[in-house]
């Protein structure tokens, strides 16, 4: 790497990390959002793990367990860190959807657990509950269910990651560039033999590495706190991540290619970022929008990015199913970058 590029790159990095507000909005804020929303919508961190026993109550092992437990009311019994609630199937489904419980026990003589095997909390709860059964038997049947929508946090985290890549890239690159143009620093820099493309590439690379750090931090945080897991391959998630960065970097370059007015820049970035944040399904599914709107929304860069992140994180989707969004994200990014560079105003 040439001395010039290295100097430019580290200058950009220092500019980013020496701004405490950037650290807060870029790193702490997404974590706080994830934590807040995750706590609000995710499974409650109750002391007692909730297990639903479907009516009618027939299984002798469960009846024994209930007999030695504390009765809260006619249908709720607590013991050994578990709370068993007896209810009918229709109520149970609602509870599952709401994330209030993740494990059910079916009626009948044989002990049958019903849960989503992808849900590790249900798996753990099942194993722990087996140990509390007095007769020491560990025969049981597993009945798989697919809980519609999985957990909210699984839905939310890739959304936050996509939004974070967009925000960080768009604000970081655009604002940094507009500000430098306004201060006449770009003009000063190109009055030297500086390689102009090095300037842009080092800025994009510096932002990319900051995004990697932010994304890893968010992922580790989510893993520790919410048991968030990557179902797909690391390669696939890396490809989606890189493509999203390219797409937003191109958008940032084209948005900041002309103006030297930070207010105008502010407005331009907001005009792109805000609608996407609202419609692209960061917090809630965009499938609730009318069909015609949905058909547009699904091609927005943020939507493609988040959809791809979700499908790799939660469904472990194969690369062969990702080629369309990845191609579009990269193509749009490169196209915006080329056009942006063509009309770029250094002073």
């Amino acid at each position, binding site marked *: 790497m040439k*001395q010039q590029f290295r100097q430019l790159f580290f200058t950009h990095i220092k500019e980013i990390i020496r701004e405490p507000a950037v650290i807060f909005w870029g790193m702490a804020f997404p974590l706080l959002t994830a934590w807040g929303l995750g706590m609000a919508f995710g499974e409650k961190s109750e002391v007692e793990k909730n297990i639903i026993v479907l009516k009618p109550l027939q299984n002798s092992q469960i009846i024994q367990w209930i007999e030695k437990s504390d009765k809260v009311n006619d249908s709720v019994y607590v013991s050994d860190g578990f709370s068993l609630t007896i209810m009918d199937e229709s109520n149970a489904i609602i509870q599952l959807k709401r994330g209030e419980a993740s494990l059910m026990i079916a009626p009948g003589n044989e002990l049958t657990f019903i849960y989503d095997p992808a849900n590790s909390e249900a798996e753990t709860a099942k194993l722990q509950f087996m140990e509390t059964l007095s007769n020491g038997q560990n025969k049981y049947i597993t009945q798989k269910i697919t809980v519609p929508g999985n957990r909210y946090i699984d839905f939310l985290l890739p959304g936050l990651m996509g939004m974070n890549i967009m925000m960080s890239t768009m604000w970081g690159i655009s604002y940094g560039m507009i500000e430098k143009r306004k201060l006449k620093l770009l003009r000063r820099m190109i*009055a030297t033999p500086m390689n102009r493309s090095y300037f842009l590439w080092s800025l994009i690379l510096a932002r990319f590495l900051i995004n990697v750090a932010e994304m890893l931090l968010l992922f580790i945080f989510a893993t520790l706190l919410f048991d968030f897991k990557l179902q797909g391959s690391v390669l696939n998630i890396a490809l989606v991540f890189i493509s999203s960065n390219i797409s937003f970097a191109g958008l940032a370059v084209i948005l900041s290619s002309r103006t030297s007015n930070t207010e105008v820049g502010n407005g331009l970035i907001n005009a792109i970022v805000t609608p996407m944040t609202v419609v692209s399904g960061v917090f809630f599914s965009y499938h609730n929008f009318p069909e015609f709107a949905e058909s547009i929304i699904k091609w927005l860069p943020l939507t493609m990015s988040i959809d791809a992140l979700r499908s790799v994180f939660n469904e472990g989707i194969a690369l062969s199913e990702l080629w369309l969004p990845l191609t579009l994200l990269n193509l749009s990014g490169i196209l915006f970058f080329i056009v942006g560079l063509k009309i770029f105003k250094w002073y």
Partner: protein
Amino acid sequence: MVEIKGVKKYFKNIKAVDGVDLNIAKGEFVALLGPNGAGKTTLVEMVEGIQIPDEGQISITRKTWKENRTELHKMIGISLQETRFMDKINVRETLCLFASFYGKSQTRVDEILHLINLTEKARERVNALSGGQRQRLALGIALINNPILLLLDEPTTGLDPNARREIWSILNKLKQEKTASLILTTHYMEEAENLCDRIVIMDQGKILMQGSLNELLVSNNLKNTLYFNFVEKTDSQYFSDFKMVWKEEAISGKIILNEMNEDIRRFMKIIESKNLNIKDMEIKSANLDDLFILLTGRHLTT
């Protein structure tokens, strides 16, 4: 070194630079002096290669911007009007960044820090520097590549006298080395007088006069200026025959004394005939502002 031939630059209907010819020799320090809007900055920007002339030619060491952009960038050092550097980056890092554009080493950065007297501030972030220190940093950046042509656009505007003198002392050191030529724009006469071998006075896109300070004053037979102050308001029409400007309309001002004895006699005659009361008056040596008034009837600095 620098050859400027018949250069014109128009912005819409404004003739920013309107036919300028100027040659600058190796090691020569030249000041472009003129009021705001005289075309100094536009001319310098064309020499810098940032603006392209609509007509005419500019060459530096016989090379033009069109064919030798990278080469010329390596040869010149510039300091723009009010450039700001990155706030979060410290003095040394800023110099290292610019040094890297020219492939210069850390040793050169240390030399520059010493030259601009910022060695002790090397680890300070740019936003913690005073106005004078920032301008010194800008000058240091302009010098980092050992330029053979230095272009400084109002390097001391807005600085206090001490800070200004520090910049002058750095530039005077450079002048003694005789390795670089300098084009400096300013609207401070003292700056032009102090630093430059030749002063080029510009107004409305044209060169009005050029030469050393002495040459300029002598060639216009300009030696002295009469400063006066009346007790009460008079009629400015009485003095309409003089080359003069009012400081305060019809009360105080100065008269350029082209023919000292003759001018003073005429002045006294008016005072007598109109029965005016003088509060005080004084004759001083003429300066560039007086010359500019003589040529245009306006002040050099507004």
